[in-house]
């Protein structure tokens, strides 16, 4: 019997997802259906729309069914919120961004989905380890760093590749990385 209260799948339907404010239309031709304990990498050239897709398509969709933590690409605004919230909750507020993120993840109690948008550029391998990513059911990561081997602790790995065409269309291609 499955005692985990959260959905067993992380899903996003195969369809077009227009994002008017960014002038982009994301075309997902195969549904995202990721079992628990999966790692999803978003990859593509700069400006292909990875962060836009996260903020305007994936996160709004996932939030209707799942609990999630989001560590954004640009921490300037988010770090003030994190700092204030940690202080309000009576926790010590670490100086460095990396240590603050670890404290934030520990404090939140969320262990379902964590989304890291190029966040790993702020942390070294030891600090990344302290985030305890394998403790989450799903990890979604945008990264240009060669750190993928860390997530092989997950039972499934997928890559969603962003291919921006001439104009507004961004084709999304899902590939299973492991197990093959």
């Amino acid at each position, binding site marked *: 019997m499955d005692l985990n209260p959260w959905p067993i799948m992380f899903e996003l339907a195969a369809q077009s997802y227009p994002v008017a404010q960014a002038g982009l239309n994301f075309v997902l031709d195969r549904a995202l259906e990721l079992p628990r304990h999966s790692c999803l990498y978003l990859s593509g050239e*700069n*400006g292909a729309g990875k962060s836009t897709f996260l903020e305007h398509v994936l996160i709004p969709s996932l939030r209707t069914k799942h609990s999630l933590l989001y560590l954004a690409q640009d921490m300037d605004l988010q770090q003030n919120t994190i700092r204030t919230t940690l202080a309000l909750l009576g926790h010590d507020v670490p100086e460095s961004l990396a240590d603050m993120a670890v404290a934030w993840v520990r404090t939140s109690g969320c262990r379902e989905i964590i989304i890291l948008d190029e966040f*790993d550029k702020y942390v070294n391998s030891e600090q990344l380890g302290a985030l305890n990513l394998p403790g989450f059911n799903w990890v979604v990561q945008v990264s*240009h760093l060669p750190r993928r081997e860390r997530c092989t602790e997950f039972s499934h790995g997928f890559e969603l590749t962003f291919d921006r065409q001439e104009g507004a269309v961004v084709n999304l291609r899902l590939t299973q990385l492991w197990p093959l």
Partner: protein
Amino acid sequence: MSFAILGEYGRDYCVIDTHNLFVGTTLEDEILLLGADDGLFSIIAQECSRFGVQLEPGRKLSSYSGGEQSIICCLLLMNLLPKERLSILLVHVLETLSPRNRSLLLDRFDALLPAASLSVLTENGPEPLADHV
């Protein structure tokens, strides 16, 4: 955080920090603030196209992605900085770029500022890029 880095290393390096890339709202503002010729916009637009980045006149810099902003800022400075033996410190810049664009950006530094030395900020402080890559 970015001001701390600037304060700590700003005397020894020209710091390019992803948290502190621009002062102006648009690239045209930035060019005006830096006292450069208006024609620089089209030069940077041409350079950006090598990276697959399409510059749009009047577009807010904050509306470009993080990686695109890094590329635009570096190209702007490459065209404005004196062609001297500068020490440039890149802070989380290369990490925002795809492998193709990272390699292309380093090639452009080499072509446009051949006398400059590049360093990156690591957990141990600045390290020459050649030792880091």
